[in-house]
C-alpha cells in the first residue's frame, strides 16, 4: 500500500513535526513563547500516518496537542510558528495561540482547548459532507483521556445512527494530564467501544507509522464508500510533560524522559531501505525539515504583533480589519 513516495512523505513529515516541536520546546524554555504549549514529541507516527491516509478535501479536528496534526494535514509551519509567537501572520492572527491553530483551506478545522469537542465537531463535518453529497471524510483526533467525555459518546452514537463518513482516531499517549491510561479507561482498549455503536474498532501500534497509515486508509475508504464510521486506537507515548515545564514526577519510570522510549522516527528509519529510500535521501529529508523550521522561525520573527485594534476583530462577521 505504501509506495516509495508515500513512505518518504511520511518520513519527512515525522521529521518536520519532531523538528517543529523540539524547536518550540526550546523557544518556550527560553521564554520566547507566551502562554502554554502542549507537545506531541514521540507521537509523530499518529499525526503523520493518519493524515497521509486522507485526501486533500478531507477534514480533521484536533486537540490541545495539535501541532503534529495540523502540520501533517498541510498547515504551513511558518504560519503556525507565527501563531506560537503571537504574531499577526499566525493562523489566528496571533490571538489564539497553540491551542487554536487551524487551516480550513487545508481541511484543518482547528486544534481545540476543550477536551472531547474535537469528536462531535468532526461528526458535524461528516454530516455536512453527507448532506451535500460530497465525498469528504472527517477524522477526529482525541486522546484516551477524552474518551471518557460524554461528547465523544454522543458523537459516536450519532455517527453510527446516521452512518456518517467519519474516522475516530484515539491517540492514546499513555497519559491524560498527570494521570495514566488506567485512571481513565477501565478496559483493555478504547477500540473495544466501537462495538457499543456497531462499527469496527481496531487497536494499532501508534509508534509504527505504517500501521497507522493502513488502519486510517482502510477506515477512510470505508467511510467514503458510505459504510459509516470506524474507531482506531493508536498506542503511543507522550515523551514530554503535559505542558512544557511540567516536572513529570507522576510518570512511570519506563515512560520518563531518559528511558529508552520507542521512537517512531527510528522505527520507521529501520524500514526506509525496504521502501527504496537511501541514506542520502534520508539526509536530504532531514535537511529539508531543518530548513523548514528555520524558515518558520524567520517568518514568525519577522511578523509584527497584532495591532491593539485587533481586540475587537472577528468577534462578529464583518468585523475583520
Amino acid at each position, binding site marked *: 500500500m505504501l509506495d516509495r513516495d508515500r513512505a518518504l512523505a511520511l518520513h519527512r513529515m515525522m521529521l518536520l513535526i519532531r523538528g517543529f516541536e523540539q524547536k518550540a520546546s526550546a523557544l518556550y524554555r527560553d521564554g520566547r513563547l507566551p502562554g502554554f504549549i502542549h507537545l506531541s514529541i514521540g507521537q509523530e507516527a499518529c499525526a503523520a500516518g493518519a493524515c497521509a491516509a486522507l485526501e486533500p478535501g478531507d*477534514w480533521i*479536528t484536533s486537540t490541545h496537542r495539535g501541532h503534529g496534526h495540523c502540520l501533517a494535514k498541510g498547515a504551513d509551519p511558518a504560519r503556525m510558528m507565527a501563531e506560537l509567537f503571537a504574531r499577526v501572520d*499566525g*493562523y*489566528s*492572527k496571533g*490571538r*489564539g495561540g497553540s491551542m*487554536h491553530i*487551524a*487551516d*480550513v*483551506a487545508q481541511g484543518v*478545522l*482547528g486544534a*481545540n*482547548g*476543550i477536551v472531547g*469537542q474535537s469528536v*462531535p*465537531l*468532526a*461528526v*458535524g*463535518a*461528516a*454530516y*455536512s*459532507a*453527507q*448532506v*451535500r453529497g460530497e465525498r*469528504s471524510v*472527517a477524522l477526529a483526533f482525541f486522546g484516551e483521556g477524552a474518551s471518557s467525555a*460524554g*461528547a465523544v*459518546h*454522543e*458523537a459516536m*452514537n*450519532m455517527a453510527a*445512527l*446516521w452512518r456518517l463518513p467519519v474516522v475516530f482516531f484515539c491517540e492514546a499517549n499513555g497519559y491524560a494530564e498527570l494521570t495514566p491510561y488506567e485512571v481513565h479507561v477501565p478496559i483493555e482498549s478504547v477500540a473495544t467501544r466501537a462495538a457499543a455503536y456497531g462499527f469496527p474498532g481496531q487497536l494499532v501500534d501508534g509508534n509504527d507509522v505504517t500501521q497507522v497509515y493502513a488502519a486510517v486508509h482502510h477506515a477512510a475508504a470505508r467511510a467514503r464508500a458510505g459504510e459509516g464510521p470506524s474507531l482506531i486506537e493508536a498506542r503511543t507515548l507522550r515523551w514530554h510533560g503535559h505542558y512544557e515545564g511540567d516536572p513529570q514526577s507522576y510518570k512511570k519510570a519506563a515512560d520518563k524522559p531518559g528511558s529508552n522510549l520507542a521512537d517512531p522516527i527510528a522505527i520507521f528509519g529501520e524500514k526506509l531501505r525496504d521502501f527504496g529510500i537511501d541514506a542520502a535521501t534520508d539526509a536530504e529529508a532531514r535537511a529539508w525539515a531543518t530548513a523548514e523550521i528555520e524558515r518558520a522561525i524567520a517568518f514568525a520573527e519577522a511578523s509584527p504583533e497584532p495591532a491593539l485594534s485587533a481586540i475587537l*476583530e*472577528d*468577534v*462578529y*462577521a*464583518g468585523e*475583520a480589519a
Partner: protein
Amino acid sequence: MPKLKYYQALTRALDEEMTRDPRVVLLGEDVGPSGGIFAQTRGLHGKFGPLRVRDTPIAENGFVSAAVGAAMTGLRPVVEIGFGDFLTCCMDPLVNQAAKLRYMLGGQIGVPLVLYTFAGGGLSAGPQHSQSLEAWFAHVPGLKVIMPATADDLLGMMKSAIRDDDPVIVLLGKKLIGSTAEAPVGEHLVPLGQALVRRSGRDLTLVTLGQMVPTALKAAEQLATEGIEAEVIDLRSVSPLDHATVAGSLKRTGRLLVVQEAMGPCGIGAEVVSEMAQHHFAHLRAAPVRVSPPFAPSPFTPALEAAYLPSPASVAEAARALVGERRAA
C-alpha cells in the same frame, strides 16, 4: 386578514429559508416525521427529506457541537432544543465553540448556526422546565440572542437569524405558542438588534421582552385608564441590545421600568438599568426600577407560579409607584 400562529411562524420561517437556501438544515429531537411536540416542524421532513431534517438522539452537547462542525464546513444548521432549560446540556459548543471560533480561527470561518428553544414559564412546568436564561448568552461575545414576542416577529427575526453569519440563540416563549398575529404577506424580514416601541407614552419607559410583552401591554392598558401613559418597548434582541431606542424614550419620560421573567441578578434588566444609569444619568428623573420574579426556582403550583411571575397587576403597581415618585418630586 389571514392569521399566523406563533408556532406556525416558526414552521414558515424554516420552510421559506430551507426552500431558498439548500445549505439550511434542521436538527433536533423529534423535528422529523412526527413534526415536533408543538407541531412546529410539521411538513418539513416530508418536504426536505431525512438528511436535511434530522431527528437526533438525546445528546444536546453532541448534536449542537456537530451543528457547529457542519456550520464550519458549508451548512447553515438550525437546531432545536425542546426546552430552554436544557441549554445547560450544550453550553460548551455554544460558548466555547460557536461563539469563539471565528475569533479563534482568525476569521477563517464563521459559524452560521441558529439555535431555537422554548423558554419561560407560565405553564406549571416546574423548576426544570420554566427558566429564562437569556442573560447567560448576552454575557458571551460572539453570540447574538433574540426573543421574538409575536408571530410576525418570530417569522421575520427567525429568517434574519438564519441568514446571519454569526451564531444566533432564539429564545421563544412557550406560553406564546398559540398566540396569533396577522400573517405577513410575502417575504417578511425583521432585522436583528432593533427594539420596537409597541406602545407610545409620555410618563414612563417600560422596557420588556419575550413573554412579558403581553403582560406589559396589559399593564399599560390598565395604567392608561388611570391616566398614566407607559411607553412599552419590546427589546426583541437582547444581544446586541438596542440601548439607543431605550435611551430615546427615557429622554422623553425620565422614568425607567424594566420587566423580565428571568431572575433579577445579572439579568437583562440589570444591563438596561446600568447602561442607562451610566450613559443617560441626566435623563433619569427617578430611581429606575426592575421587576422580576423572586430569586427562587419556578414553582409548579399554579397559584404560586402566578404570584411568582410579573403580572399586569404587579407591573402596573410598580409603574404607579415610579410615576408617583415623579408626582411627589
